[in-house]
């Protein structure tokens, strides 16, 4: 019984933190720029492929330091891509209707798909977890793989860093000011355009980081962009559009829903997840935590 409970909680946390890693950049960009970046999953996917390319130099025996370096390389690569995307796409979308933003970012997703097929091909690929994270821990009858613990810790660390920067630094406070009233922020001398750019770079870097950290978590294929993005949109919506804390809380909440659903309603996978999202939208359409209060 204790083992079952630990397993459910553990599985919920893996799901939650893997999803939060993907959702963090998405919610940051939406919170500041109010751009719902449909292509975020595409850059997460490319981040995974970049990490795969770096790690393929090590064969099957990958040291932890190399794994982390690969994730950082993926993050930097996607951050750099963010500069190009901001210049070529996002800046041109500032004054247009949200529908056009969705179309443009969906087109970007298709570009990501094409890039992956062009460079890495159609074959399914995978990466082994680092050699230091191949063990398991037995706790009260539950099996806890160390790589899964690493994923959970990665999600928590990313959240703590983001939360600290957004709420405890002057840069974070400037971001919150711009998110609420960019015009007034400009009037008082803040370089809004520059802040926008750095927000996009950070959002894309987070997508790349998620791709790199999760590269050994699942298969790599051109379908990867769509696999996590649906979950990520779920936690962004439930958490409160643009709220990093909300996304973190929502990812744990929905992770629990998913784990309980899989355990107690095994014949209806996913049903409870979507029912919960629908229920939250009906009861609390602004999400669990609203952005204005919690960014």
């Amino acid at each position, binding site marked *: 019984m204790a083992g079952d409970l630990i397993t459910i909680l553990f599985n919920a946390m893996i*799901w939650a933190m893997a*999803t939060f890693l993907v959702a963090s950049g998405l919610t940051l960009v939406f919170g500041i720029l109010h751009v719902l970046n449909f292509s975020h999953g595409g850059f997460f996917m490319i981040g995974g492929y970049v990490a795969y390319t770096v790690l393929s130099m090590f064969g099957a025996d990958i040291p932890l330091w190399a794994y982390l370096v690969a994730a950082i390389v993926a993050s930097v690569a996607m951050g750099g891509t963010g500069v190009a995307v901001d210049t070529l796409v996002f800046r041109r979308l500032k004054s247009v209707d949200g529908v056009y933003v969705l179309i443009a970012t969906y087109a970007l997703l298709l570009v990501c798909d094409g890039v992956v097929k062009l460079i890495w091909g159609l074959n*399914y690929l995978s990466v082994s977890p680092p050699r230091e994270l191949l063990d398991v821990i037995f706790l009260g009858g539950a*099996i806890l793989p160390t790589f899964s613990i690493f994923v959970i810790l990665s999600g928590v660390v990313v959240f703590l860093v983001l939360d600290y920067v957004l709420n405890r630094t002057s840069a974070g406070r400037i971001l919150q000011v711009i998110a609420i009233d960019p015009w007034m922020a400009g009037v008082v001398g803040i370089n809004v355009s520059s802040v926008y750019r750095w927000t996009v770079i950070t959002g894309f870097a987070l997508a790349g980081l998620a791709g790199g950290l999760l590269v050994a978590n*699942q298969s790599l294929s051109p379908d990867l962009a769509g696999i996590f993005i649906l979950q990520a949109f779920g936690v962004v919506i439930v958490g409160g559009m643009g709220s990093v804390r909300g996304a973190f809380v929502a990812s744990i909440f929905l992770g629990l829903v998913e784990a309980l659903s899989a355990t107690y309603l095994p014949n209806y996978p996913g049903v409870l997840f979507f029912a919960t999202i629908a229920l939250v939208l009906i009861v609390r359409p602004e999400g669990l935590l609203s952005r204005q209060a919690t960014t």
Partner: protein
Amino acid sequence: MTGISRRGVIAGLGATSLAAPFINRRAFAQSGDAIKIGVVTALSGPQEFIGNFVLSGCQIAVDQINAAGGVLGRQLALEIRDDRANPAEASAAARELIGLGANLQIGTISSSVALAMGPLMTQEGGVVITCGAGTEKLNHENYNEHVFRPGDGPYMRMRAQARLMAERQPEVTSWTGLVPDHEYGRTTWAVYVDGLLQFYPEIAKADPEILDPIIVPYGAGDYRTFVTQAARSQAQGIYNSTYGGDSVTLFQQAKPFQLFKDRVLMDSANEFIVAGALKGDTPGHWTGIHWYHETNKGNPLSDQLYDDYVKKTGNTQPMGWVSEAHAGIYAYAKAIEKSGKSDTDAVIAGLKGLEWDTATGKRLMRAEDNQAIKDVELIYIEPDASGPLGYKVTDYVKVDGNTVIEPPTPGEPMTLRKPS
């Protein structure tokens, strides 16, 4: 002063477009020198990976047949369209190709596309050969005489897998499944169970214990909850019918739980997909395959297909869909030769009851339900960390298709044994 008014042109165009659906498309079919064969397959979208193998198989078969003088002195020519595994796009492409004279079509991978093709081909006067579409409805509830399956259907494949287990693993009598949450996934499990319930008592002299399958979502990023459920199960054998990237992710996440360490793993249809991705992390497993060149070594068609494929692509590990398309084109060639004509009715008549040579040996296209009888091929894959691929095939078998195929019951659903 041409005498052509704008109003007249508009009226003419309108009348033409209104009349177009009623023009008999058969009138346009196959009037040129080359016999056109339409390839409508997934060249983008979720099944692009498979579609490329299908296209290669078609191209190699056409090149081989043309190099040998063609069919009835005429060359074969392919007209290629992308269906994105989408029934609507496939229907549009198929209609267009029939209009261009390609009444003979091939390449359907997706079950939903295959089911859409029957009524369309009846209406438009074409015929289609599928290349891996798995739905059992094709030769049962949705049987249509314009649709042919030259490969093994799910009934044959899954029952052959159950038969092999009864022969090779008679001591493994308790089974569960990792079953994707869609109709086809549940069907594969149901047929596998039917096979277990027949062959274990017959061959292993033991009654199998069928445990509840674990239903897993399609296209998820995390399967650990389902893996832990399976790990807690008392089953000695696991049947996997998840597919592609889902299987790779599931097997990858199952490794720390040692899910497959002391259990027999029978995989429905991943061929080399999982092994190619996981390499040295691949768990030892049986998998169904449409064609494995080593199994068929010595068969001139197989050896030639393998050589031509490697020469064409540089890939030394082709997947079996190459052979399905190759066999389909050869079926058309033989059917045209048999009937002496390439129009739809003649080709349908030629295909029914056709016996022809393929890369996997002789196949018979059963006349009653357009389902081929062929041997079912299975391979056992193990990790091989020091090898060039990271995995290797250590065993392969053919199960006689006649021993596992159902009797023809076109128009009626399959009847399956169920655990008591």
